[in-house]
């Protein structure tokens, strides 16, 4: 029998729209924000500009900026979720049940984790890599510029799908890693887990493409003379991180696919019954998930290395140690995944092995910290905002590392696993390690991309608000963990005596929001006062690496002449030797803009949406669309355009005259 309505809309019906006030409020504010932006663009007649200059751009700098904008917007969404989570936990005590029901609360923390990792941390990381990696290695572009655009738009499609769950249907309530059997159809029959699967799946494919792209870029496109051991340490850190992406993300893709097969095709990979094994999923997801942590933090390590050398006005200490430490961390990160579930009962030998491997990672990480500290030693340190983020990172990351060593001892972990101590630990690592690093990177490289510096005073306010907020938000969680408070509780009895600490943690969130407020203000004020903060030299921080040799804002072709590299701090050495090369102009060929990345991602979005709601025609249409767009693009021979040497000369003069 053919049911037209169900063939047309799958599982979707009017029940899919939000009915409680908070979700409806979230959905409406999202819709209004989109309408407001659209109205503004129409009023300013900026649609064409947006499409031609930005959305279809294959320039990695533009793609990088777009990644960062999406990530910062998602940061606001993630923080909004936090506000709800902490409000619930501060008020839902004893006879009071707070503002959310359990299911909604669980959807919110699942969304919080997924968004913060996949669309904030990953977005900031790929954004900064796009901005800086080609400049750092003296290249004009990435190896596969079109692939880069596809990867970005797949990231956007995944992000859109996850946020769409507020408007149509629901989100997963099974935690950010959706362990089965809870995430199986039997216990989560709705569309929530499918939203989770498909937004990660689509964004994850984008991440894998980016990994391949940046690896190739590093291997094939370095400036002449830049041997591996002359690469800036940020490039090494990206190399290691992207290696992890290439090895780890296929595991995620397969694991998500198997979970989806279980849910939609009645298979039994991870079910409790029918011969499935949920713990297989837990192993697989962490075989991706642990490297993922290092995928995020290694580029941040690279940024810290650049920042500390620049602001201490000194060569990075122990370059070779740093490279070996990065390599060791990369290798070891695949041998520790089981420490996320010592409590599975795998047995003493297995637990001890993974516990020891985990501790071993502390050695190269510690080496990096000492090398950074000795970069400061005998330096001449300027405490600009990026340096403050660096100092904040060393302090918080070290404390978080101690918590990590505690949990690496399996029997000790039995007592703090899944407690708020664990939550505090990984937030210390991710906020102190990853987020602080990317904020440092944004502040540090902002003038290179936009031609003016960010307001220092507001940057300092933002830093201190974040730091105080972070301490207030997470010290109580460490304490609560020792009191036996588990994570993800939407309610507890008054006799526990936890409420006070939850309130303090909530106040911490307000301080973090204040910090974000200062950051938004910082962007606005800096744009308004850009004339005062203009970077006339192209080298506002007295930098050491190649990007500072180009004018700011850096032109679309990056370098008029591809620089030659003779030493590690290539630009610093050029400045010291007072070498100034006479400009030599040449024809520069770069890829044309292309909207095909957007189309591919739009079709992928359809496939995802169709799979979530079981709308077969949409899945088929999306798949055909993807294939056709890829074929059309592949058949397009006219994908590049050349800027003549004369035009480059003119542009360069303009850039440097404006600069000078």
């Amino acid at each position: 029998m053919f049911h037209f309505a169900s063939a047309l809309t799958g599982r979707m019906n009017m029940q899919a729209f939000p009915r409680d006030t908070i979700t409806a409020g979230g959905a409406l504010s999202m819709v209004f924000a989109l309408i407001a932006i659209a109205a503004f663009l129409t009023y300013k007649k900026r649609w064409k500009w947006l499409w031609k200059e930005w959305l279809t751009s294959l320039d990695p700098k533009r793609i990088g900026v777009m990644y960062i904008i999406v990530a910062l917007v998602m940061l606001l969404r993630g923080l909004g979720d936090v506000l709800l989570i902490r409000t619930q936990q501060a008020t839902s005590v004893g006879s009071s049940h707070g503002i959310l029901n359990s299911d909604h609360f669980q959807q919110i923390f699942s969304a919080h984790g997924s968004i913060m990792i996949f669309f904030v941390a990953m977005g900031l990381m790929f954004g900064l890599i796009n901005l800086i990696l080609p400049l750092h290695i003296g290249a004009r572009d990435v190896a596969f510029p079109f692939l880069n655009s596809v990867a970005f738009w797949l990231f956007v499609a995944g992000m859109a799908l996850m946020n769409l769950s507020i408007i149509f249907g629901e989100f997963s309530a099974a935690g950010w890693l959706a362990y089965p059997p809870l995430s199986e159809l039997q216990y989560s029959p709705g569309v929530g887990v499918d939203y989770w699967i498909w937004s990660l799946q689509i964004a994850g494919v984008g991440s894998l493409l980016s990994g391949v792209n940046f690896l190739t870029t590093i291997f094939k496109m370095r400036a002449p003379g830049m041997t591996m051991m002359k690469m800036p340490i940020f490039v090494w850190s990206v190399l290691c991180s992207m290696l992890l992406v290439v090895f780890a993300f296929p595991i995620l893709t397969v694991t998500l696919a198997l979970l989806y097969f279980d849910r939609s095709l009645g298979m039994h990979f991870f079910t409790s019954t029918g011969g499935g094994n949920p713990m297989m999923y837990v192993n697989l997801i962490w075989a991706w998930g642990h490297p993922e942590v290092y995928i995020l933090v290694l580029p941040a390590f690279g940024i810290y290395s650049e920042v500390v050398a620049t602001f201490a006005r000194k060569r990075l200490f122990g370059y070779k140690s740093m490279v070996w430490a990065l390599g060791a961390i990369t290798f070891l990160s695949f041998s520790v995944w089981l420490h996320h579930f010592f409590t599975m009962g795998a047995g003493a030998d297995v637990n001890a092995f993974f516990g020891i491997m985990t501790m071993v990672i502390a050695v190269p990480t510690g080496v990096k910290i000492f090398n950074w500290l000795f970069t400061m030693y005998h330096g001449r340190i300027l405490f600009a905002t990026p340096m403050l983020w660096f100092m904040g990172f060393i302090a918080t990351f070290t404390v978080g590392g101690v918590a990590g060593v505690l949990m690496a001892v399996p029997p000790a972990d039995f007592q703090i696993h899944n407690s708020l101590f664990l939550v505090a630990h990984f937030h210390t690592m991710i906020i102190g390690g990853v987020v602080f690093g990317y904020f440092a990177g944004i502040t540090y490289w902002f003038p290179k991309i936009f031609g003016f510096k960010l307001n220092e005073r507001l940057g300092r306010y933002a830093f201190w608000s974040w730091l105080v907020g972070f301490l207030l938000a997470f010290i109580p969680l460490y304490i609560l963990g020792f009191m036996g408070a588990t994570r993800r509780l939407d309610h507890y009895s008054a006799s526990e005596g936890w409420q006070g600490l939850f309130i303090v943690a909530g106040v911490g969130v307000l301080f973090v929001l204040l910090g974000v407020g200062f950051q938004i203000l910082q962007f606005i004020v800096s744009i308004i006062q850009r004339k005062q903060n203009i970077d006339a030299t192209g080298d506002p921080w007295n930098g050491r690496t190649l990007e500072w040799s180009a004018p700011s804002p850096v032109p679309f072709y990056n370098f008029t002449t591809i620089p030659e590299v003779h030493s590690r701090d290539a630009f610093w050495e050029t400045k010291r030797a007072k070498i100034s090369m006479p400009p030599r102009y040449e024809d520069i060929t770069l890829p044309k803009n292309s909207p095909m990345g957007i189309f591919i991602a739009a079709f992928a979005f359809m496939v995802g949406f169709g799979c979530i709601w079981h709308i077969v025609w949409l899945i088929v249409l999306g798949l055909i669309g993807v294939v056709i767009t890829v074929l059309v693009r592949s058949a397009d021979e006219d994908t590049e355009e050349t800027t003549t040497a004369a035009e480059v000369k003119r542009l360069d003069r303009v850039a440097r005259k404006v600069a000078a």
Partner: protein
Amino acid sequence: MNKKRLSLILIGVAVAITLAAVFLHGHNFAVLNPQGEVGRKERNLMYVALVMSLVVVIPVFVMLFGFAWTYREGNKKAMYKPNWDHNRTIESIWWGVPTLLITILAVIAWNSSHDLDPYKALVSNKQPIQVEVVALDWKWLFIYPQQNIASVNFLQFPVDTPVNYTITSDAPMNSFWIPSLGGQVYAMSGMTTQLHLMANKIGDFEGSSANISGTGFAGMRFVARASSQADFDSWVAMVKGQDTPLNTTDYKNLAKPSENNPASYYSSVQSNLFDDILLKYMAPGSTVHNGSMAGMSM
């Protein structure tokens, strides 16, 4: 830094510590204040790991703030060596010292993982109590096979006596945790895990599920009561005296999702109930809602 600023910071720190002490006084730090030998050993391990980490962490903090202060831009007296970028001796120190510490910690981790293996029986001259634990949506069922009784969300056992828990789930994965007595172990359907704990003091301890298992999971709290042997015996007698048997049909009803269940007791338990719960996930083609596989394990 001038003296006024420094004294302000010190006063601030002192006030914060005092406030924290007042605020936290009287709270139960279950993990740091264990009432049983397993929990005590696990806490001591945390302290050992903490002290060993401090060997590295304290120098890091001293150097971080010391170097930042000494080599600040304004201090022109400090030595500035922009090209000093490696030194084999000191780099060997920070590859070497952490390696040494981690080696020691690795030995501790290996030994303690075996010593505190949750599957390992505790040494005692008392006969251990057996408890079969079943995580349900959203409550805990405790079956006492030796006494042939069962309870929901309430555990009682004699003090200074090992309790051997055999744990499974008839619901999504949970984690069985009594922080005052020692670490947790997952409860997984179709599988059993084991945990051995012993209380060394009389008292009521809180237990919970540490792993999310659906909407009612926050309410999966239970009391674990360590009492004298006499009190335990009279509790068993009291439960046996009720007329509340737990047969397959009762179990099916009990296994249906329900939240915030109060403690309740069963005067007898259908034989092999625990094995039946386990087996229904193992039998080929069985469905989860089918609880009538009793014949198989007879």
